[in-house]
């Protein structure tokens, strides 16, 4: 393309190239480790949590975590304003975040995929309608609508998952639509080709991996998106309701006391941050690994 096109100069010096590859995978490895740990923790919650997350003990309210002078190993992460063990609530809170993230992503993924595939496959007016619906959805203030609906219907785990699932489908639709269009164009290529069998091979080796790769990346994005949204909704009081240990709710409950009992907001906040970060890193890693190296 340019004057130096005679030689490809993408490689840096040997060490740099190696370091870059490792670093790229590094993020994904760390991310995946964290995500799987959180999943494990959520699944094994009854075994891991030292106390019942709903058990109140008004004698032991606002006990600091173990690293503080007044803390103790009985409540490693301290207790909240109702004397409930914070570590246990954190562990069970992981279940909520994951449930919501995965649940909402599943619903929106289903809706978005159906819409996208229909649009890509039928084209014409169906495509126009779907594209229009995507534009309409993109023009709606998600947070505002979610808040309003939850306020009216009443907040709960199921409601939040449903509402988020019904709102976050746009990226799925866009991606599946373009993938389907790509597959469709293969038909015309096939018709033009004398040899017919190569179409399905091309489909399997080129298009499908691309589609799966995109789908995985979008799914991780939307899971993270849903987790953050739920946390924000619960923080504002219009998401999951107490006494459920949603991390967002924990931050909200702790904010009145955040000056002196800062762990109340720090701990669930860090947990949220790490989980979302890990999911993003995993998604980025999957994208980097599967995308460019597929070109063989």
């Amino acid at each position, binding site marked *: *393309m340019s*004057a*130096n096109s*005679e*030689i490809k*100069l993408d*490689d*840096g*010096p*040997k060490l740099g*190239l190696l370091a870059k590859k490792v670093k790229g995978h590094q993020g994904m490895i760390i991310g995946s480790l964290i995500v799987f740990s959180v999943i494990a923790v959520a699944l094994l919650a009854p075994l891991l949590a030292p106390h019942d997350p709903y058990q109140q003990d008004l004698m032991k309210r606002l006990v600091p975590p173990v690293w503080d002078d007044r803390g103790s190993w009985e409540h490693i992460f301290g207790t909240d304003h109702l004397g409930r063990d914070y570590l246990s609530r954190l562990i069970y809170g992981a279940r909520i975040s994951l449930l919501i993230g995965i649940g909402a992503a599943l619903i929106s993924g289903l809706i978005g995929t159906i819409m996208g595939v229909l649009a890509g496959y039928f084209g014409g007016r169906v495509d126009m309608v779907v594209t229009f619906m995507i534009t309409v959805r993109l023009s709606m203030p998600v947070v505002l609508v979610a808040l309003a609906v939850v306020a009216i219907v009443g907040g709960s785990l199921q409601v939040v998952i449903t509402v988020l699932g019904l709102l976050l489908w746009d990226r799925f639709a866009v991606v599946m639509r373009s993938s389907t269009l790509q597959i469709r164009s293969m038909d015309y290529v096939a018709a033009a080709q004398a040899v017919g069998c190569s179409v399905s091979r091309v489909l399997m080796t080129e298009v499908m991996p691309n589609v799966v790769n995109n789908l995985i990346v979008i799914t991780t994005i939307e899971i993270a998106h849903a987790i953050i949204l739920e946390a924000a909704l619960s923080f504002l009081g219009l998401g999951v309701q107490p006494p459920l240990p949603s991390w967002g709710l924990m931050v909200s409950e702790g904010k009145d006391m955040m000056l002196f009992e800062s762990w109340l907001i720090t701990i669930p906040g860090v947990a949220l941050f790490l989980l979302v970060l890990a999911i993003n890193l995993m998604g980025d890693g999957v994208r980097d690994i599967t995308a460019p190296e597929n070109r063989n």
Partner: protein
Amino acid sequence: MSNCVLDVKNLSVKIPLAGGVLHAVDNISLSVAKGETLCIVGESGCGKSLTSLAIMDLLPKKAIRKVDTLKLGGTSIANFSEKDMSSIRGNKMGMIFQEPMTSLNPAFTVENQMVETLARHQSVTGSKARELAVNMLEKVGITPAEQRLKQYPHQLSGGLRQRVMIAMTLLCEPELIIADEPTTALDVTIQAQILDLLRQLQNDFDVGLIFITHDLGVVANIADRVAVMYAGQIVEEGTVFEIFDKPTHPYTRGLLRCIPVPGKIKRGEPLGSIPGMVPSLIGTMDACRFEGRWDDASDRKFKQKKQKIRPLCLKDRIFEVEGDAGHIVRFCCDECLKKSNLNIMTANG
């Protein structure tokens, strides 16, 4: 030599890659005089583009340039800082590239891109600059110039864009212009027009021109002198007549053999080619570069006689062709020298 616009001695370009060091350009020397056209011919990958970038100091960051002498109009620019180089680029020496379709910035008008050169190098702005731009556009055959000035690159055809590039390069009246395959991407008819234009402009402006190409037809058309490049080295150099009449290096002979001459080639006869492939230039360069590319049978049928050569620098295997001062040949190794079967004269002749 006040007539000498460009003087290059022992230029090398090395690029460190993941698999080793690429010796892209290996100790080449060349010179261009005022009003003279030097054609650098060679196939893709021989290093001719990198040579031009090396002269302009526009090599990619990782590339390492070594040169003994690099003089532009008598002034050494070998050790110029980037700041100094940028004030002579576009000013004392200019460059025209291969792809006119993408060489102009799509976001600015022709006028904008032409006038900024004048502002940068000669502090000429406003209506005076516009006037100069219009004049130059007319000189390169673009009329109505005023209208074209206001247009954006995407509104012009490939041939027109290349003319604009040429005009832009001439604005500050450089001493040297390097044209890197400027007509390769254009239609044959446009190509002929551009070549005529360049020849004419060279006459008018008395500028030294380095014309890089892989097309021998273009060479025959426009060159005063020719340098044949192969695998990073200049293997033969001389006037255009010497090169076409008395090709001495086996590679040059191979190139000329490949040109099918209507009337001289029989129907059904295979087209000439040079067997083998260009070797990899990565790593130590002790091996012969012309390995496997000999075609003695075809060479014997080739009409041009083999010349006698006289040693100039035995260490680097550089020879001069008997009777042609300035017609130089270079061999990459002793093997090639032997296989070329040339008559080597001694100093006493």
